[in-house]
C-alpha cells in the first residue's frame, strides 16, 4: 500500500465538480481509494477512521483542497496521482463542453464520456441507423420508434447481444432503468422486483400494482412487442432475465407479454428453469401448465402477477389491500340497466389493458369484437363502427398512423366515446387513463366534458349509462392518481382499482342472472 497526499491551499471547486472528480478518481486504474475534499476537521476525522492519516493531511485547513490517492503498489502512486491531477486541470474543458450542442450520436458519445444510454424516437425509416450507431458507441439503446423491419430488429439485437448491451425495442415504450422512468413510465418505489416486458402498458400496469401493494422495482426492461416472435427469438427477454438474475438488488423477476411463439416459449421457459430467483409469468391468455412445469409462477391477470411478486419479495400479506371486487356495486348496476343494454364498449389507450379486459370478457361472453382480435372472425369489419361487445385499442397502428399516440393526444377517443354513449344497446363503457412520464398532463380532465355530456344525454333518455374508469398511475406521478380519480368519481364514473378489476367489473355488470363471479 502506498499513499500520496497533496494539499492545495485556498483552492475551491464547486460541489458538482468535486463530486464528479471524486467518482472519476476512484475509477482510475490502480487506484484503491481516492479522496478529493475540503480539509475540514471532520473530514480529517473520517480519514483517520479509514486509516489514511498522514502528517500532511493533519496540516490541512478548512479552506484547503485535499487530494489523497491510495494505491496497492508504490510504483503506481505517482502515475495515479498524475491521472487525478489531469482530471482537475481538465475540469474546465469538461464543463465548457456541457453547453455544446451535438448533431450526431457519434459526436455526442465522444463529447460526453459518461453517456451510457440512447433513447431513440425518430421516424422508423431513420431509427435503425441511429440505433446501430448508438450500439457501436457502446450505448445501451431504448428504441421507441416503430415501423422497423423484423430483419433490422434481428440485426440490432444480435449486435447488442454480442456487445452485451440492452437493445430495448423497436416499439418499446416503457422502461425504468436505475429508478429513472424512460418514455412512458410511472413513478414507482425503488424495491427488489425486476420486470422484463414485451408490452408497454402491461408493464406499466404491473409496476403500478406492485407499488400499490407496497412493493418496489429494481429495473423494468422493455423488449419491444415483437421480441417473442419466432424471427426475433426472444433475444432481449432472455438477456433481460439473465441480467436480472445476476443483479444483486433483484429478488423476484416478473415477465409480461402476450403468449410467445411456441419455439420461443420453450427457450424462455428453459431460461426460467435455470434462473436462481423466483419468476412470475404473466403471458396474457397464456398456458399455465407449461409455466408451472418450468418452475415459474403463473399469473392469469396483471393484478395476480403483481400480488405474487410482492409476496415473493417478502411483503407481509396481512398489510396488503388487495382491493377486492365491489360485488354489491355490480348488483346495483345490473338492476339499473335496461334489458336491451347488453353490450360492453371498451375504449383503451393501452394495448395490454385492452387485451386484459377483452380476455376476461371472453371467459364468459361471446361475440366480442376488436381491432386487435387474433381470431379473424371477430375482427371489426369497420374499425369506426362497433359490433356487439367491442374492445378498441386506440394505440394500434389503425388509429395512430401519422397521429400521436392516444396517451398524448386523446381527441379520436373522445369522439368515439360520444358516439358509443348514444347507442341504446350499450350498458357499460370502460376506459383507461394512463398517467406518468410521457403521457398527457391531465388525461381525465380532457375527457370530463364528454363524460358529463354523455351522462346528461342518457339521463334525458331515461337510461343508465355505466362508465367505468381505470386510472393507471401512482401517488408519485404528476398529476397523481388521487387527483385524477377524484375528478372521475365526482363526474359519476365508477372507479376501478386495477386493469384487472376494470375488466371484471365491466363483464360482471352486463352478465344477466347466471355466471356470477
Amino acid at each position, binding site marked *: 500500500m502506498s499513499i500520496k497526499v497533496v494539499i492545495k491551499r485556498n483552492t*475551491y471547486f464547486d*460541489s458538482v465538480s468535486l*463530486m464528479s472528480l*471524486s467518482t472519476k478518481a476512484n475509477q482510475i486504474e490502480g487506484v484503491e481509494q481516492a479522496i478529493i*475534499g475540503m480539509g475540514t*476537521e471532520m*473530514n480529517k476525522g*473520517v480519514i483517520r477512521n479509514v486509516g489514511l492519516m498522514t502528517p500532511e493531511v493533519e496540516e490541512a485547513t478548512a479552506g484547503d483542497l485535499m487530494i489523497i490517492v491510495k494505491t496497492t503498489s508504490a510504483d503506481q502512486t505517482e502515475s495515479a496521482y498524475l491521472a487525478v491531477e489531469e482530471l482537475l486541470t481538465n475540469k474546465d474543458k469538461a464543463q465548457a463542453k456541457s453547453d455544446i450542442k451535438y448533431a450526431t450520436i457519434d459526436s455526442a458519445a465522444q463529447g460526453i464520456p459518461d453517456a451510457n444510454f440512447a433513447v431513440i424516437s425518430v421516424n422508423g425509416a431513420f431509427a435503425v441507423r441511429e440505433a446501430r450507431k448508438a450500439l457501436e458507441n457502446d450505448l445501451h439503446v431504448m428504441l421507441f420508434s416503430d415501423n422497423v423491419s423484423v430483419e433490422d430488429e434481428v440485426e440490432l439485437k444480435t449486435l447488442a447481444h454480442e456487445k452485451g448491451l440492452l437493445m430495448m425495442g423497436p416499439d418499446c415504450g416503457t422502461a425504468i432503468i436505475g429508478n429513472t422512468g424512460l418514455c412512458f413510465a410511472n413513478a414507482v418505489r425503488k424495491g427488489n422486483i425486476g420486470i422484463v416486458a414485451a408490452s408497454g402498458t402491461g408493464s406499466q400496469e404491473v409496476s403500478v400494482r406492485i407499488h400499490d401493494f407496497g412493493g418496489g422495482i429494481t429495473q423494468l426492461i422493455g423488449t419491444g412487442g415483437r421480441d417473442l416472435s419466432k424471427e426475433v427469438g426472444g433475444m432481449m427477454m432472455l438477456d433481460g432475465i439473465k441480467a436480472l438474475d445476476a443483479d444483486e438488488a433483484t429478488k423476484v423477476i416478473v415477465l409480461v407479454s402476450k403468449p410467445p411463439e411456441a419455439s420461443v416459449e420453450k427457450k424462455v421457459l428453459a431460461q426460467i428453469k435455470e434462473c436462481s430467483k423466483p419468476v412470475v409469468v404473466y403471458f396474457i391468455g397464456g398456458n399455465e401448465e407449461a409455466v408451472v412445469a418450468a418452475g415459474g409462477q403463473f399469473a392469469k391477470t396483471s393484478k395476480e402477477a403483481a400480488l405474487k411478486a410482492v409476496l415473493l419479495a417478502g411483503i407481509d400479506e396481512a398489510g396488503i389491500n388487495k382491493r377486492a371486487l365491489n360485488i354489491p356495486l355490480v348488483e346495483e348496476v345490473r338492476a339499473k340497466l335496461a334489458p336491451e343494454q347488453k353490450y360492453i364498449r371498451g375504449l383503451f389507450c393501452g394495448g395490454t389493458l385492452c387485451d386484459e379486459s377483452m380476455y376476461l370478457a371472453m371467459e364468459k361472453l361471446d361475440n366480442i369484437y376488436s381491432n386487435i382480435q387474433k381470431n379473424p372472425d371477430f375482427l371489426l369489419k369497420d374499425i369506426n363502427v362497433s359490433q356487439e361487445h367491442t374492445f378498441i385499442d386506440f394505440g394500434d397502428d389503425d388509429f395512430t398512423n401519422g397521429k400521436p399516440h392516444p396517451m398524448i393526444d386523446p381527441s379520436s377517443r373522445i369522439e368515439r366515446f360520444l358516439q358509443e354513449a348514444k347507442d341504446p344497446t350499450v350498458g357499460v363503457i370502460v376506459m383507461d387513463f394512463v398517467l406518468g412520464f410521457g403521457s398527457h398532463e391531465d388525461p381525465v380532465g380532457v375527457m370530463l366534458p364528454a363524460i358529463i355530456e354523455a351522462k346528461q344525454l342518457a339521463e334525458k333518455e331515461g337510461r343508465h349509462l355505466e362508465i367505468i374508469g381505470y386510472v393507471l398511475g401512482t401517488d408519485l406521478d404528476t398529476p397523481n392518481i388521487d387527483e385524477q380519480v377524484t375528478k372521475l368519481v365526482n363526474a359519476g364514473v365508477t372507479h376501478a382499482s386495477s386493469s384487472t378489476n376494470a375488466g371484471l367489473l365491466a363483464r360482471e355488470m352486463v352478465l344477466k342472472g347466471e355466471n356470477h363471479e
Partner: protein
Amino acid sequence: MIHAKSGDDYFLQQIVATAFTGTVHSVFKHALNIRSDGNDEIFTLATKAMDRAPNTLVIDLDTLDHLYINQQDRVSVRDNQLLIEEKLQIAIHTATRWQCQLPIYPADRTSLKMNMIRVKQFIDLHGKGGGIKRNDLPVSEFEAETSRLLQQRTTLLYEEILNQRLDCFQTYATDLVGLGPGLTPSGDDFLVGLFAIIHLENSPCSMYKPLCESVIKMMQPLTNEISFTTLKKAAHGQVRESICSFIHAILYGTEVESIEALRRVLAIGSSSGTDIALGLISGLEANIVLGG
C-alpha cells in the same frame, strides 16, 4: 457594463452605505465570492442561473467563464458601480431588493403531513446520494465512513431535539460541521435546512433559536468560509430563495407544488440540495412530533 438584477438587502446596504472594498475569494462558473476588507465577510455575485440568496447579488450574465477573473483581484465601488479590476463593471441601481422571509409555521398541519410523505418518497427516488443520503454502492471506504458518521450524527441531533434537551444540541450540531463531500460539506448543508425550520415563527422547536445563534461562533474554524457564510446566515433565519419557497410550499401548498419547489432545492450543488432538503425534513418531522 453588466446590470445587477436583484440583490440581497443587506449586501446592497453594505455597498451603498460603506466604502465597500474587497478581494475575489473564489470563482466558479455561476458564482463568484468576494471577501469584504471591512469585516472579512463573504459576499457573492451570482449569474442568472442562480436564485436569490443572502449576501448575494444576481447579475445579468449567463456565465462567469471567459472573464479571466482571478483570486485576489480587487473589488471596489465607484459611482454606484461594483468593479472587479477592469474586468467586470456592475451597475447596482437596477437591482431589485430582496430579503429572505420565512413563512409562519401553520396551526393546521394537514397539508404538511400529506406533502411530507410524497416529498420523502421523491427524495428517496431522486435525491443525490453520497452525502446524508447513502449511496447503495459507495465508491470508496472514505465515502462509506463519511455516510456512516453523517447518519449517526444527524440521528443524534434529531433525537436531541425531540427530547427537548438543550445541553447536547451544540455539541451534536458542531460535530456535523465540515463533515462530508463537496464544497459545502454535507453536514453544513443539513444544518442549513434544520436551522431554517427552527427559525419559522411558531415553530415548536423554536426554543433552539438562541442556541443556533450562539453555536455559530464555534463553527467558524470548522469549515471553509463559503460554507460558513451560508451557515451563519441560516443560523439567523436567512436562507436562499429556493429553500424559502420550498418551505412555503410544503407547509401551505399542494403536493404538486411541493415537488416542484423541491426539485429546485435538489438542484443546488451536487448532493448539497439533497442534504439541505433532508435537514429541512428532519426539522419538520421534529415539529410534527413536538407540535402534535
